[in-house]
């Protein structure tokens, strides 16, 4: 037990902080669920990558910094602390990137990774289907081998920002006779191919960050197969564990929300304290954001020392999603009658983006496996309860 940073880690933090201070956009970018915002974010990540901060956990030879998880946490803290933009490239660099490194052929790596790093190719995920949400093994979209191509027919959904992305990746059923998680293959698909139709899905805040992707006899060359034909489930699962979740759900994000919540409370203290339970809710926000951070550092330090992640990691999803809702609900309560105002209005002073954050937080208990399913997993795999 040694809960101190090494001098190298402190120096690394300082290096990140200096770069961020100099480079983070002073004016917030547009929402990346709009076309304009998407382009702004893409440009920002290009710059981030040019500065050498695009993918700090990637190996040096691929343009990263070979950071371990502790260093990555430090990087994230400084990134969020500086108020830097959300990562529009996350599907590529955190989800597909590590998978490509593990399962891609040398040619695939050479072909995809540098363009991913430089934001020349933006990637969208294509996992879910209308009938296969939390139950991914129910995937039905077919990819039928025809000579040196797969011919894809079917539909994917909840594909984040697919409208503006260049490529999609996901699982497709290459063996039409197969069931559940057998007979699936992991395929990379250019989204500008003939036969592809992309239809936006509007989310709660009215913006269309999601999309459905329709495939109608779409021909994809077989060299776009990642891993073995029929082995897609294994490829998908191998990188679907803790690290992936961690990359997407950095504790720094929640700590910054907690910090902003405390500020909001202090700025409205007299009003807020009329409801005696609000102070309690703010204390809880601080406590749980700290707990999430500590837990992440704890797991990271175990992994850095060669330890393995256990089934207890399935508790993460429930904890951060409930924490996120709790903090935003508390903010809404502090704002009281102002909470409902859209921030553009002339009288919406001080409401900030809490409402939008609240709407976003509501997706937390649902996506990436609903919290009900997570509880089943915890009970069965971690506690060993009967199926």
């Amino acid at each position, binding site marked *: 037990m040694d809960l101190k940073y090494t001098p190298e880690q402190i120096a690394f933090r300082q290096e990140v902080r200096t770069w961020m201070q100099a480079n983070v956009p002073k004016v917030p970018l547009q929402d990346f669920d709009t076309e304009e915002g998407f382009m702004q974010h893409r440009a920002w990540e290009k710059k981030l990558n040019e500065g050498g901060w695009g993918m700090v956990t990637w190996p040096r030879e691929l343009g990263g910094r070979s950071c371990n998880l502790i260093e990555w946490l430090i990087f994230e803290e400084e990134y969020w602390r500086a108020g830097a933009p959300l990562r529009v490239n996350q599907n590529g660099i955190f989800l597909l990137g590590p998978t490509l490194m593990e399962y891609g052929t040398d040619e695939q790596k050479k072909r995809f990774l540098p363009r991913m790093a430089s934001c020349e190719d933006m990637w969208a995920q294509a996992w879910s289907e209308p009938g296969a949400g939390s139950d991914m093994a129910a995937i039905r979209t077919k990819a039928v081998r025809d000579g040196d191509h797969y011919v894809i027919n079917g539909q994917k959904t909840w594909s984040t920002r697919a409208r503006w992305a260049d490529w999609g990746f996901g699982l497709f059923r290459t063996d039409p006779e197969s069931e559940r998680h057998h007979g699936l293959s992991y395929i990379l698909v250019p989204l500008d191919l003939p036969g592809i139709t992309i239809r936006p899905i509007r989310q709660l805040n009215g913006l269309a960050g999601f999309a459905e992707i329709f495939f109608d006899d779409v021909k994809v060359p077989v060299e776009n197969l990642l891993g073995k034909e029929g082995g897609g489930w294994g490829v998908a699962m191998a990188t679907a564990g803790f690290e992936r979740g961690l990359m997407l759900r950095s504790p720094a994000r929640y700590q910054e929300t907690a910090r902003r919540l405390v500020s909001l409370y202090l700025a409205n203290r007299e009003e807020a304290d009329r409801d005696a339970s609000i102070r309690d809710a703010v204390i809880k926000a601080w406590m749980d954001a700290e707990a999430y951070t500590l837990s992440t550092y704890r797991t990271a330090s175990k992994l850095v020392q060669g330890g393995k992640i256990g089934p207890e990691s399935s508790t993460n999803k429930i904890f951060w999603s409930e924490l996120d809702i709790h903090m935003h609900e508390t903010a809404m309560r502090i704002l009281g*009658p102002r909470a409902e105002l859209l921030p553009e209005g002339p009288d919406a002073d001080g409401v900030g983006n809490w409402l939008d954050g609240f709407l976003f937080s509501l997706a937390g208990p649902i996506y990436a496996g609903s919290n009900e399913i997570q509880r089943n997993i915890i009970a069965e795999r971690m506690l060993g309860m009967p199926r």
Partner: protein
Amino acid sequence: MDFTFSEDQIAFRDTMHSFFAKELPVETIRKLWENEAADASSIRADLAGKIAEQGLFALSVPEDFGGLGLSDVDWVLMTQELGYYGVTDDVVDTAYIAVGILAGLPDDQPVKAEWLGRIAEGGVRVAVGHPANRLIAHADRADLLLLWHNDEVHAVPAASVQVSVNSSVDLGRRLCRVNWTPSPATRIADAALGKSLWADALNRGALAAAGQMLGLAQRMVDISIAYTAERKQFGKPIGSFQAVKHHLANVAVKSEFSRPVLERAAYALAEGQSQAGEFVSHAKLACGEAAWLASRSGIQVHGAMGYTWEVDLQIFMKRAWALDAAWGDRAVHKNRIADGYLRADALLGAGNTFN
């Protein structure tokens, strides 16, 4: 001791239920939310005319002034319908809250007869600027504004005010800041009378919000039941999973135990009972909690669909959030209860529920 509604009351409620089901389907709300520029104003005018034909605006206008003279208790059923169908605030603000203020004026106040009559006919909208609300709902489309100034009531025609409009998360709700100048000509009640009129208006506003939130909770449950019966996962309708059932059962419990609270509050208000304020606050908190839970549970059982614009749930969810802090946020209402009941001389315990 009788909690039941009369056959007439039930019949009127059923009529309005069928009416709104036909005239205000969700597609219409969507049009009004999304299409402010094009045909929205003709849809609004058409709907307003039809609502007027139903007599809704005459409901609590005293009979002497051309109305039906019904009471707060009748509004319990009505506000639940308005909530269930997501009817915009201008209707209840005009027909219930503004009428309450106007009806409380002395008969020789000319504004009283004129505007009660016009409201009963259904052709006008009155906005109410109560100090409990930071902004005034629908002031930009009102014909008359009833405004607070040092406890006085002022009646100000639309032409005499300047209005800035804010959007709410409930896109059917327009929250306005109103600039205006009080004058003897606009004053229709002095501070002494005004104080009691504004107090009543707060109670009616809170009660109307409570009724709507309970209706909204019911709507969200209905939408969720329908969705989970149809949607399948792992080969079974998701509504057959215990976790999904328990989510909605919890909302049902909250709703069931909010309804009598709402009814008691309306009755106490209609009867002028001394604890009416505390009872209204109780109703606002209880119904608000039911609606809040319905929205949280509703989105959860909808899975990813619950996070989309397409699913109707979002419309009613957002309206519920908007009403939660209207007419006094939770702090206001909790503090009224604490002031009334957390004291040594309060009438508490068995036998003290009814006067």
